[in-house]
């Protein structure tokens, strides 16, 4: 799993554990709409200071948000029909989705220029 996706998933998991929505955690830090979604999708590369700010709001440590967890926690974070035992398959699919979304954004951005 890539680093950004792991951070996004860790933030989501920690927020859920506290019974908080992502908006409740991230909106006070200025993450809204598109940026909030990108962060939780793992498509926003956060500097360490930002991770620290989020950890503070959650009342946790930077280590908690930057350390990989058990695969099962990440597997449970995506809706699937059927079962998926390995993170490898899930990541492969999510990587393709990300590549496609990035590509469309790059083409659209070029059109607007």
């Amino acid at each position, binding site marked *: 799993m890539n680093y950004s996706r792991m951070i996004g998933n860790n933030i989501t998991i920690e927020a859920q554990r506290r019974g908080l929505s992502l908006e409740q955690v991230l909106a006070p830090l200025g993450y809204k709409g598109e940026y909030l979604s990108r962060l939780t999708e793992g498509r926003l590369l956060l500097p360490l200071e930002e991770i620290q700010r989020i950890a503070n709001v959650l009342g946790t440590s930077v280590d908690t948000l930057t350390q990989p967890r058990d695969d099962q926690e990440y597997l449970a974070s995506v809706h699937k029909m059927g*079962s998926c035992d390995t993170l490898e398959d899930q990541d492969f699919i999510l990587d393709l989705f990300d590549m496609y979304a990035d590509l469309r954004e790059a083409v659209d951005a070029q059109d607007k220029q």
Partner: protein
Amino acid sequence: MNHNNLPMEAIIAIKNNVIKARNNYKLMNLIPRDDIFSLLEEECVVLYYPLDNKDINGMHVTKTVGQELEHFVYINTKNPIEKQVYCAAHELGHILGLDQTVRDEIKDQALDSEAIINRFAAELLMPEEEFRNALILKLKEMGYEQKAVSITMDSLLRIVVYLMNFFLVPYKAIVLRMEEMNIAAQEVIDGLETLESENQDRIIAIIEEGKFERLNTTNERKNMKNLTELLLEAKEKGVISQRKLKKLQDIFEIKMQDAADIPQITKEEVHIMI
């Protein structure tokens, strides 16, 4: 095991939402079969890709594209086409937010999402009247004219396979539909469920004997919405690296040609007679 765990008002709400969806999509065919993929593609980006892990049928996530949140659905094309069809209908239900709609309509927030979505998929792919008619027709063809009949499990298995082919849905979906519609007693449903897990070879033999050529076949399709066009456009605009382009071409087995490489048809004039 009884799967009928939805209250009647929830079932009615699901049926009404299926009618709404049919009207919205202007769906003329009451039995959508693989037309379901076109409906799904209207709502989201669908990734068709064969993964060796057949336990994973599909996946649904939302992703930001530009400033919009879009739905992305994955379908495992290593699985038989009937499983892909059912998966597409199931994910369509999630995208349409049918679970929340039904919970709100009947004011019961405790209803299980997956139960609602699975029932939506069943109602969309196998409408009750069409299901009953297909069953009656097959029974008549087999020589059973009465309303209540006693048949062997093997004959029932043949009927299940016939209905799988007719609606292009998996074995489990047909058995569950029979249960939902109270077509057979619980022990018969349980027997059919056991047969699937313990006698897969017999089911495959019936599929082969019946020449149901679409069943139990995979297409191993590899595609995403307009991917080739998107890659060509990205290449032309210089917004994709060679490495990324090659990676995606390899993954999806896409052969791309520059316009200059495509052989031109002769410009010489030819005569035709009308």
